């Protein structure tokens, strides 16, 4: 079981709990605004972009090459960016805080 906190673009805090699947799916199932997951989680749409809060970085691990490539020219990307369809829910990420990234 992992508790995951989302901070939306409007600064609303949404706390969700999940046991399996991707963080994107959890967010979509619970209607977190700004996480659309249009491609269904295969790294093709970048509509699941989040910033991992400072300090929680180690729990989620580094972004994979395709994630950084997809965000290469994204004005809102930074070194804490992830496409959250690529973060699997497990005990290891319990307590993480994710900020929904801006988009054009």
């Amino acid at each position, binding site marked *: 079981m992992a508790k995951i906190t989302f901070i939306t673009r409007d600064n609303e805090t949404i706390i969700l709990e999940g046991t399996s699947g991707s963080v994107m799916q959890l967010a979509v199932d619970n209607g977190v605004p700004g996480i659309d997951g249009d491609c269904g989680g295969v790294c093709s*749409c970048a509509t699941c972009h989040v910033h991992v809060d400072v300090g929680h970085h180690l729990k989620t691990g580094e972004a994979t090459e395709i994630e950084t490539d997809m965000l290469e020219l994204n004005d809102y990307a930074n070194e804490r960016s992830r496409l959250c369809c690529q973060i699997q829910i497990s005990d290891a990420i319990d307590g993480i805080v994710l900020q929904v990234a801006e988009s054009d």
Partner: protein
Amino acid sequence: MSVHLNKNSICVVIGASHAGVNLAFSLRKEGWQGAILLFDKDPEIPYHRPPLSKTYLSSDEGTNLLKSVESYEKDNISLNLGISVSSINRTDKTITLNDGTIQAYDKLVIATGARPIIPPIPGIETAAHVYPMRTVEDVAHIRKALHKSLNKRVVIIGGGYIGLETAASIKKLGGRVTVLERETRILARVTAPEMSNFFMQLHTENGVEMLPNKNVIAIENTKGVNTVVCADGTQYEADIIIVGVGIRVNSELAKEAGLVIENGILVDETARTNDQNIYAIGDCTFHFNPHYNRHVRLESVQNAVDQAKVAAAAICERHPIYDAIPWFWSDQYDVKLQMVGLYEGYNETLIRKEDGESNKFSIWYFKDDTLLAVDAINNAKAYVLGTKFIKDASKIDKSKLMDASIPFKPGDLLI
């Protein structure tokens, strides 16, 4: 009062898939106060279609829902499944359901998508285990038939993206797969010969029998075993046949209601039809693309989602304009293809290969100096760069683009 602010207004949506479902949720976001009613003849909770030929077929993961059931409740969207709409009456502003029920609307959105073409091949009606690939039900049939079959000989008619993805997935499930393509190469209608060659080789290496120039003229069935007969006299035995030869737009409802149909339901830049209270979105539309300056019909999630957002904004009187660069993807084995733009009309292709990586390259389609489209294999960087260049109508230095030693950065590749 504007119709979208009136609590008594009703928006009816025909089709609850990528386009219809996104429209419904966007409509709420845009401030539609009245009722939103979604109707779909498919009884399943609306799901992502692209995984059907990919992970949904090849694994036991189950469907990816577009939205959770609770989301519909939360946004007060009424989801009516297993119900088919049989007609639209524009004078009364009503639709009729298959059980005869009449439902009134203030705004109507047609998101009926498309259905697979079943070509009129003699014997196809009586052949055993012939399936299209469009719905959860189709995949359930294929999986069941495959599971029961001893020999697991699968013939796929049509070497387009859906046929090839299905081939890769069935291979993963242990099937013996033959792909029969009528044209001289696979993917002939959607990509350059170099890309066709790449996928031809990829599938061959993975043990799929890939056969272009095969025009299927008959299917014979003896004792439950199908024999697929081609025009050149060759024959292929098949326990299961999958048909992936393209789609036909579901435009009959619109046509019978007197809406203008061209290559799909004709809509303007706000996704509106020639009836000011009726919009159409997604696979079923024929719409203008400002960037390419022509009308197009697209079959993609991007188009369904983006056009849904435009229609929702338009219904809520926000005067949007649909102006998106089309994009698409396909996953086969561990290869990811990402495409952006529309390549029709190209007169030159350039191929950029990344040093030392055979399965990583990109094809750039130009018309003279204008970049029209990019197909990227395992190369998301090429895809995002191409997207930016197309959007900005950038002038690209072609020799630098071809030179893998020059970094893939926008500034380094322009004239």
